[in-house]
Structure formats: structure tokens, C-alpha cells
């Protein structure tokens, strides 16, 4: 049977983009862990709130980057390679 090559490419791109976006999963887990530990630390010592909040924001930014790498692969596949 004949498979149109353009349709085959589009189908593979869609499957690949969907699989790549599974990597966004890890960002949510990481951010939730960091925030939970920060809340526990503030509850133990409320005077150090400013320092703990700064460290938490930095930790969230680090944890978010890995899921953004997965998202950018998925976006590039859909928007740049789709014909």
C-alpha cells in the first residue's frame, strides 16, 4: 500500500512531539518537592523567611529548566518541521 511521504512525516512528527512532552512531568515533581521543603523550613524558623524564599525561587528556576528543555523540543518539532 502506498503511504504518502508527507503524511508519514507529519504523523511521525506528531508522535515524537507527544512523546517529548512527557519530560515536562519531572518539573512539576521537582518544584513541588522544593516548595514543600521550603514551607517546612519556614515553619521551623519563621525569622529566616527572606533567605528561604530567595533560595526557593532559585531552586524552582533550576527545576523548571529541565522540563522547559522537553517543551522546546516539542515546540520545535511542531512549529518548524511541520509542512
Amino acid at each position, binding site marked *: 500500500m502506498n503511504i504518502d511521504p508527507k503524511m508519514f512525516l507529519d504523523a511521525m512528527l506528531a508522535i515524537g512531539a507527544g512523546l517529548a512532552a512527557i519530560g515536562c512531568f519531572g518539573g512539576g515533581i521537582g518544584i513541588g518537592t522544593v516548595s514543600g521543603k521550603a514551607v517546612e523550613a519556614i515553619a521551623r524558623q519563621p525569622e529566616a523567611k527572606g533567605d528561604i524564599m530567595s533560595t526557593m525561587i*532559585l531552586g524552582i*528556576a533550576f527545576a*523548571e529548566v529541565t522540563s522547559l528543555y522537553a517543551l522546546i523540543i516539542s515546540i520545535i518539532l511542531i512549529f518548524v518541521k511541520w509542512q
Partner: protein
Amino acid sequence: MEVGTVFDVNIFNHAFAVTSSIVTQWIIMAFIIILTLIFTRNLNKIPDKSQSVIEMIVTTVNGLVSSNMGNEYKRFFVPYVGTLAVFLTFLNLSGLVGIEPSTKDINVTLTFALMTFFLINGNAIKKKGLGGYLKGYVEPYAPMLPLNMIEKLTIPFSLCLRLFCNMLVGAMVLGLVYSGLGHFAFIIPIPIHFFFDVFDGLIQMFVFIMLTMVYTKIGASH
């Protein structure tokens, strides 16, 4: 994802495309320069209201640099970090007035990340000398050489991608909301603007300058 070309500049028979993100940056640069000239017109020893705001900003940046990097870096890094903070704030928040943020173009964020890359490595070479800098690649033992090189490369890569992806996602969601609502875009875009433009933009600016300071300090220490 694409940015439109506004006009072409011909230098040495090569056509350099001036894109809309460059024109946006020129407008924001002119705006910041005019604001600076207005606010620093008459500086008194006893500050009035507008001068107090400027002094508060300078004090905050001074405090950030001296608490994260120590006092010997204050002379060089407070102007750089302060300028980066003000410029990135205006670039990220320009979505509130209808201009699409320039940082959704990867060329803009790659430039910022490259500036930080040169600053980190230049500061490391200046503080440790060229021999000490090259010896730092084989510490603690020689097979760590590829890992150290990869680490030096992923720092600007991750800085660039973090800012670019966050701003691009915000611009895409807002584009979808506006094109979906059409003429009825009244109250619904407001919380979306607040989350993606104000909150995300300010946090990404803060994270960028904190990581610049922390990486510079780490790069010159071990």
C-alpha cells in the same frame, strides 16, 4: 515563533535584517535613557520623592551584589547587574502595553547569556590567572576534563533557554487567548497577563541576575 523583518541594513554587501525585536529594544532603550535624564536632573543631598525611588533601587542592587558576591565585586558588578535588571524588567513587562516582549526571540536571550558567559570566564581568568584557569579544568582529577567543559557550556545554554522558553510560552498563550476571543477580549485576559507577563517576567529577571552573580562568584573561587 517567527519575528518579522522591519528593514534591511546593507553593510559590506551583506544584508543584515533588522527584525522587530531589535526595533523594540531600541524603543525601550530610548525610553530608559529619557527616564534616566529626567530623574537625575537635579540631585540634592536631601532627596525628594522621585530621588528616593531611584536611591531605593540603587540600594537594593548594592545589597544584592554585596550579599551574594562580597564587597570587592561591588565596583564593577553593581552597574552591570543594575542595568541588566532594569533592561530585562522593561523588556519582559512590555507585554502589558501591547508590545510583544523581545525576549521571546532566542537571539536576544542568547546575547544576554553570551555576555554573562564572557563575564564569568573573563572574571575567572582575571582572578586566577590564565594558568590557574586552565588548571581548574582538570580539578579534582584529569578524567573530569570533559565534564568540566560541558558544565562551562551548559551554564549559558540553560540561562538562555530558561528566559526564552518562559517568555515564549507566555506570548503563545496570550496570542491564543486573544485570537480565540476576538472582539470579546474584556476581562478574561487580565489574570493571564498578570501571571505570564508580570509574575513570570519579574521572577525570570530575578533568577537571571541571581544566577549571573552566583556563577561569577563560583567561577572565580575554586
